[in-house]
């Protein structure tokens, strides 16, 4: 019993329960839900969306927000496709370049926030526009079609059974992030700064470096998400990332992240992504209007913040 109560306090417990319930419920109405084809579609959506959510989660962890996640992802995506088509760079080099651009764009956010002391909201709103503008300025809103075969086949191949290869990078990132936030000083510093910036500084943590590092990681993850979308769509669409804003906040919040900072969980965020994907898929499956996805997403954010708040209000008594 004691174990169960400890377990139920873990961040991922609630989302996991919700995930299992949702799967069982949907499966009982539609047997095809867990078909190989459906699972593959689910995993493809999760692979990209998880990276988008992580990109925001790292910033939520330091108690800030990043409106430019989608713009960075889009910029990295067209850079990735563009340098391969226009300059004929090999895919691995293009990948590195795209990731570097993402990390740099994120670092710019962090540096601007740190040295100006202006809120992350305003800074990332401005850079959102700048990055998106550069994207449109370069592409003139036309996609890059010249994606090499290697990338296309990466995007279309299967790892095993119904599991697409695209899941692999996301799985690795998930492990690394989990390790970082749990075990590496960098991750601990990010959480410490988000939890209490003043105390973190007093404990010898360089708050500025931590903030910039978190934003660079956020940019890197957004860029990786952008690259995966290019591999999946097989073209470099300038509009990649346009619809990430709500999604990026929804999954961490559904996973119990506190927007004030210092409290995020990689696993819970992943489960948040899974829940969103399952419900979206269910709407399609039951041929409910896909337009309603937005409504459901918004409602889920509201429900999740409401629940998180209730949980915060009834803290468990300290065990003496």
């Amino acid at each position: 019993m004691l174990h169960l109560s400890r377990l139920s306090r873990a961040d991922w417990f609630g989302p996991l329960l919700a995930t299992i319930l949702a799967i069982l419920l949907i499966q009982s109405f539609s047997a095809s839900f867990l078909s190989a084809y459906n699972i593959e579609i689910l995993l493809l959506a999760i692979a990209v969306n998880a990276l988008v959510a992580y990109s925001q989660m790292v910033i939520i962890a330091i108690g800030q927000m990043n409106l430019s996640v989608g713009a960075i992802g889009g910029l990295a995506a067209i850079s990735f496709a563009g340098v391969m088509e226009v300059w004929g760079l090999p895919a691995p080099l293009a990948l590195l370049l795209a990731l570097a651009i993402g990390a740099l764009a994120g670092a710019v956010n962090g540096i601007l926030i740190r040295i100006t002391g202006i809120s992350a909201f305003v800074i990332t709103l401005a850079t959102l526009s700048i990055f998106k503008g550069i994207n449109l300025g370069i592409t003139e809103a036309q996609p890059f079609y010249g994606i090499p075969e290697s990338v296309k086949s990466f995007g279309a191949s299967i790892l095993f059974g119904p599991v697409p290869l695209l899941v692999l990078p996301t799985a690795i990132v998930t492990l690394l992030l989990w390790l970082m936030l749990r075990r590496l000083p960098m991750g601990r510093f990010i959480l410490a700064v988000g939890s209490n910036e003043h105390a973190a500084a007093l404990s010898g943590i360089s708050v500025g470096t931590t903030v910039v590092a978190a934003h660079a990681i956020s940019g890197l993850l957004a860029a990786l998400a952008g690259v995966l979308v290019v591999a999946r769509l097989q073209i470099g669409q300038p509009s990649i990332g346009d619809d990430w804003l709500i999604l990026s906040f929804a999954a961490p919040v559904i996973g119990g992240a506190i927007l004030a900072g210092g409290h995020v969980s990689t696993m819970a965020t992943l489960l948040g992504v899974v829940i969103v994907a399952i419900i979206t898929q269910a709407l399609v499956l039951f041929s409910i209007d896909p337009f309603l996805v937005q409504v459901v997403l918004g409602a889920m954010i509201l429900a999740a913040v409401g629940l998180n708040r209730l949980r915060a209000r009834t803290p468990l008594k300290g065990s003496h």
Partner: protein
Amino acid sequence: MSAQDLVPASAGPLSPTGGGLSRTRFFLSNEFGLILLIAAFVAVFAFTTRGFLSPFNLFSLGRNSAVNIMIGLSMMTVIVTGGLNLAVGAIGVCAAMVCGWMIEVLALPWPLAVLGGLALGAALGFVNGWMVVRTGLHSFIITLATMSIFFGAMIFLTRAESFRAMPEVFSAFGKMKLATYLSPLLLVTLACALLLAWLYRFTVTGREMLAAGANPAAAELSGINVNRAVILCHVLSGVLAGLAALMLVTRNGAAIPSMAGQLGQDWLLPAFLGPVLGGTLLKGGKVSVLGTVLGAFLVTMLTSGLLMLQVGAFWVQTFLGLMLLVAVLLDKARRSYLARRNLA
């Protein structure tokens, strides 16, 4: 030590309507800076482009800035509370679509439909405000969620189809030119701005909104119903967002679901550019209606001027983002300069 230490403004050279701004203070103010910038850029564009001051360009400039200023005012009314409203675009489009629906499907007379649209804007604003007050959560996350809900519901109900059979009055009003160059839309916006300025300076409700935004705890203990003030701010924001969208309808001659982009996100940048350039504090409690008007106008004018300079339509967005950055940096520098001067 004596009563002379207190200089009552009524006895001084300032009239109370002067808002207590001395002349030097005005020259150091954001508004004055914006006026200088506007004048400078008008001169630049007048010389470097052909037809910047032509009646046609002035007309379209006025029409575009009417919409942008209105969007900025809509955000400003919520920034006053120290919050923000990400759903301005979504609310605006919903209001426009309801107006279109009432005309095209219900065949109601257009004034009724306009009122219906604005009423929906107010209602959606009320939903935002009510949830912010009841949950105690920051308006960022609430309006992020409602932006998705409002927009999704609108797309679901309209099947993403436009209402194009708008009555002639609408597009006629949008095309109307007063004295060959002035769009009446700009007059509507300016009238709204004047009303807002009056609200914040000369009414109890406006003062209470500012007090509630500056320090909710103190305002509450001074007898202000802070919750009501916050909800009212959101309702006002919803109405203004609806108005901005209806103006777009008169310009386009149709109510189009995508007129504010995906989820209404396209409005976010103009919505913040006006108030932030105009010196409205994001943490609430201070407002400058004139600043918002000038800020939004400057942005519209620069966009139009850059397009005429053939900068390339796609780069304009980058430019606007840079401008927001520069503006907040300049404002910060100006404030710290003023703070130093006050101490010295």
